[in-house]
């Protein structure tokens, strides 16, 4: 059984006028799938590109589940993320990242808003 330790923190001093927030959540995530793609960087274009080498599968948590990290390394252009049905659900401004348990999708698509921004990603199939 392989484990990914994920820690996410949010802090803000101006979300509310009277209360500051600071929250950290950590969890050890089990990764037993055979599709484990380590940190990778690809050059994107305005044409969608699947970033999963082998179609995601498995039955846990709704099926085809994988932990996905994507970061936009560009300083100017955005990176758009689509599911396997080409529905857009995320838009990473320069420097932004996302981390989520993908499900019910055999792949994840990325494309650039313009030009060829670099995209850093990690995909770990759960089972």
């Amino acid at each position, binding site marked *: 059984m392989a484990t990914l330790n994920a820690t996410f923190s949010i802090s*803000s001093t101006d979300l509310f006028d009277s209360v500051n927030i600071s929250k950290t959540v950590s969890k050890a995530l089990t990764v037993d799938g055979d599709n484990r793609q380590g940190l990778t960087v690809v050059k994107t274009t305005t044409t969608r590109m699947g970033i999963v080498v082998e179609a995601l599968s498995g039955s846990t948590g*709704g099926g085809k589940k994988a932990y996905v990290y994507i970061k936009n390394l560009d300083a100017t252009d955005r990176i758009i993320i689509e599911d396997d049905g080409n529905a857009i659900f995320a838009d990473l401004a320069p420097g932004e990242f996302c981390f989520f348990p993908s499900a019910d999708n055999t792949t994840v698509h990325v494309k650039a808003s313009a030009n060829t921004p670099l995209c850093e990603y990690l995909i770990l199939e759960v089972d």
Partner: protein
Amino acid sequence: MSYANWNGNKNFRATLTLESEGEHAIFGADTPIRKRTIIDCPYNGKVMQTGSMRLTGQGTKDNLALAALSGDNDRAYLYLFNTSVSTSNSTYVKVGLRAAHDTDSASGDWFATLPSFGQLFIPISDMQSVDLEVIGSSTPIVEYMLLQKDA
């Protein structure tokens, strides 16, 4: 457009740390993963929600946004945390996109799943709201932040 009762140009800081090393390392003990990334997230929209919600139950899609997300491509920051501590793999929360605020997501519109104590952070776009639906017999409480980027 600005909103007189909001302080403009707000930010929160998001930090993600991913580690896998030692005996149970994903790529073996000789290939550890250590990744840390930090961003400051600006938001200035009319939808600024934080809170927690007990989900209704299986078969009901709970609509997260109180008003339709808008602005450039309806972009917003979404953070979700499933507070349930159940160890059952058959209980989880489906996260789907509502293209229109007042219309449930379609069956193929869910893009993430939250296990017990699971979390996600996504700068979402192209949806006016987010659906949450529990699969299983429980009614977990989900903590959330939904912060529209543009006014």
